[in-house]
């Protein structure tokens, strides 16, 4: 074995893990890593414009590719800039390996230039983190990082490496296998529990499947479909579960929760069995917990035992990888029909067309989003930001391309959309990738547009531009007596901004131009930014006000709405 520098060992480890792309930014404390890069031409480095974007892009890349995302930065501000992105990956259980440079080890704890205690800072937002103080520990630390990030319930892992450790040398020996006494995730469901769940399904008259991000992460769409079809159980997907079940399937019901479809929220309250697959009963899904699904027995499938009973009392918990458990379940359940129940759901849907778009000549944001879906074909990918546009994007996504909807769910990170779409495009270079952006969030990360020119990424950006922080404005209108504060914002000329970044920009303010502009964007070989000047004040419905039960979801009070600012 030959002796290698720590920085080369880092690269060797990444190669061993099959890493093809690193999103990063250089600085004093990770320069040895950059010095090693040129020796590894098979590993692509993408220079972001802000480290937050490195984490988001790696996060989105991971969600779509199914592999761990890798990002790195220098110490201090480089590392702290990653924090939002790490927190985002943590909340959404995304496998992310973050490697941060650190000040030389003899300066640790002495406030060295660009020192930040990043392992201390990221304890609550990483699945695991560690600082490597000996070059011989680099390989095991990185092997552990990938193992921990990608197995069990995935999550971000941070490895902090002082510059002198990157420069020290030792023999490279990559662990073939990582086994940690304190980390042995249960991946196969207990057969007895699976049998019990099958029994509950057989007894049930009004069953529902609530599928969450776990189904997407575990790539369990096929298994989910098998279970749903065999027992004829309607499927609701949470915001992050979107793409875990075909949108065009007759059993698909769309999204529940705060801005989910009214019919789903009522259905959950009427169901006698809820099979929660890879979801964690987030407050945006359940509403007031004490009133959640009052008639239902609950089967909860999750790989993380800490999720069992965290929010909701469960009759049959099944700890395990959701794909394995659903496959197990498929063999145990008897074919079933629930015609009366499905008729009830169809009636609810007919009587409460929650996501119908009003007939109007005005340019409504929902209309724009729906048109994008209609025109982009069955193989397109979507990344969204956070707010109204995100909820509409979720409501109107009824596509079949699995794992194609990328959004910031748990943390709700505005500005996710731009770097996320870039990360998705790197994972799916030949497919159409849309960034569905809010005008507020877009301005948080718009510096990354430059990457589309530098790396020739044909990302299509759609800014749903209502000149407002729309969701905050909606809450101020609804819950703060219409006291609209700090939500109207000056907008740069997004078209000129796009041009300054070297990409094509178009402004669309007329409904009649929507389809043609989307088609033009899709035809254009490079990146395009479409600035949709939509209706300023359009509320997102259905809406379940915070703190109430699903039963109190407001469906579409459009008629009673005051005519603000028109």
């Amino acid at each position, binding site marked *: 074995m030959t002796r290698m520098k720590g920085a080369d060992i880092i690269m060797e480890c990444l190669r061993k893990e099959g890493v093809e792309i690193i999103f990063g930014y250089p600085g004093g404390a990770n320069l040895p890593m950059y010095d090693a890069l040129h020796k590894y031409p098979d590993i692509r480095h993408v220079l972001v414009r802000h480290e937050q974007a490195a984490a988001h892009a790696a996060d989105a890349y991971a969600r779509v590719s199914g592999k761990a995302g890798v990002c790195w930065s220098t110490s201090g501000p480089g590392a702290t800039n990653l924090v939002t992105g790490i927190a985002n990956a943590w909340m959404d259980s995304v496998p992310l390996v973050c490697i941060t440079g650190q000040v030389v080890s003899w300066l640790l704890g002495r406030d060295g230039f660009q020192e930040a205690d990043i392992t*201390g800072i990221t304890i*609550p937002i990483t699945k695991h983190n560690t600082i490597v103080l000996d070059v011989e520990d680099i390989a095991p630390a990185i092997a552990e990082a990938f193992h921990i990030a990608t197995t069990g319930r995935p999550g971000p892992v941070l490895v902090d490496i002082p510059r002198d450790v990157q420069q020290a040398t030792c023999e490279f020996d990559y662990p073939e296998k*990582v086994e940690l006494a304190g980390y042995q995730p249960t991946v196969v469901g207990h057969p007895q529990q699976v049998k019990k769940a099958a029994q509950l399904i057989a007894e049930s008259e009004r069953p529902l499947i609530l599928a969450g991000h776990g189904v997407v992460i575990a790539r369990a769409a096929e298994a989910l479909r098998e279970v749903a079809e065999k027992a004829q159980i309607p499927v609701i997907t949470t915001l992050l579960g979107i793409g875990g079940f075909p949108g065009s399937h007759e059993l698909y019901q769309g999204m529940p929760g705060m801005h989910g479809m009214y019919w789903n929220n009522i259905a959950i309250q009427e169901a006698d069995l809820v099979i929660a697959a890879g979801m964690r009963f987030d407050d945006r899904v359940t509403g007031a917990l004490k009133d959640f699904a009052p008639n239902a027995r609950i089967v909860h499938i999750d790989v993380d035992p800490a999720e069992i009973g965290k929010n909701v009392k469960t009759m049959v918990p099944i700890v395990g990888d959701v794909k394995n458990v659903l496959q197990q379940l498929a063999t145990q359940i008897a074919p079933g029909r629930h015609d009366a129940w499905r008729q009830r759901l169809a009636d609810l849907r007919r009587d409460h067309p929650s996501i119908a778009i009003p007939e109007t000549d005005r340019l409504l944001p929902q209309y724009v989003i729906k048109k994008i879906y209609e025109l982009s074909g069955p193989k397109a990918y979507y990344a969204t930001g956070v707010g109204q546009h995100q909820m509409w994007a979720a409501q109107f996504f009824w596509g079949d391309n699995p794992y194609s909807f990328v959004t910031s769910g748990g943390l709700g990170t505005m500005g996710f959309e731009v770097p996320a779409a870039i990360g998705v495009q790197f994972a799916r270079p030949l497919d159409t990738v849309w960034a569905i952006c809010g005008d507020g969030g877009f301005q948080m990360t718009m510096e990354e547009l430059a990457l589309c020119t530098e790396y020739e990424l044909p990302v299509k950006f759609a800014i749903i531009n209502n000149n407002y922080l729309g969701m905050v404005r909606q809450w101020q209108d609804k819950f703060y007596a219409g006291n609209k504060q700090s939500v109207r914002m000056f907008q740069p000329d997004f078209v000129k901004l796009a041009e300054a970044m070297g990409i094509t920009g178009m402004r669309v303010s007329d409904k009649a131009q929507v389809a043609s502009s989307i088609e033009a964007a899709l035809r254009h070989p490079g990146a395009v930014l479409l600035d949709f000047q939509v209706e300023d004040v359009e509320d997102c419905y259905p809406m379940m006000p915070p703190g109430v039960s699903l039963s109190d979801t407001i469906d579409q009070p459009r008629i009673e709405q005051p005519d603000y600012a028109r």
Partner: protein
Amino acid sequence: MSGRVHTIVALVENRPGVLNKIASKWRQRAFNIESLAVGPSEVPGLSRMTFTVDGAAHDIEQVTKQLYKVIEVVKITDVTDQGTVARELALIKVAATKESRSAIIEIVDVFRAKVVDVGPDSLVIETTGTEDKIDAIVAMLTPFGLKELVRTGRVAMVRGGAPTVTAPSADGAGRHHRSAGEGKPKLGSLI
């Protein structure tokens, strides 16, 4: 948070930063750790922690599940409802004059405590027992002039032959490759 005092025993890898990670989980759920005792366990490379925390059983169960997610936590158990032997050690420095010294020693004898240091105007007393016993001796000694008090916090062990907590495998820290940081001078100890 209403509940009672729970005794939680954990086996953890003896590595820098572990206590910080564990404390972070308790803090996030706003638990106040009443006492904490840490030291080596019977397994090389693993330390044993004993926590006492006040809270409802459901909340405690939630946090222990979260704690188990800390990679360096090898095993964690709530032993509150098991038959355990639980002890705490205290050192008590009390003012002692020529006149009061024998009265103090009388109390020490009653409690089966020990005088471990004698100074011209003070005594250091060592005592072991349950929290109640230590509270009682401290209360008895306080009128003489309590100069200093240190208590270790509870340590506990399940009665009988069964182990309180067991590591899933017996080979030290249980890492099947050379573990990061193993055998190296640490920047700091566990704490």
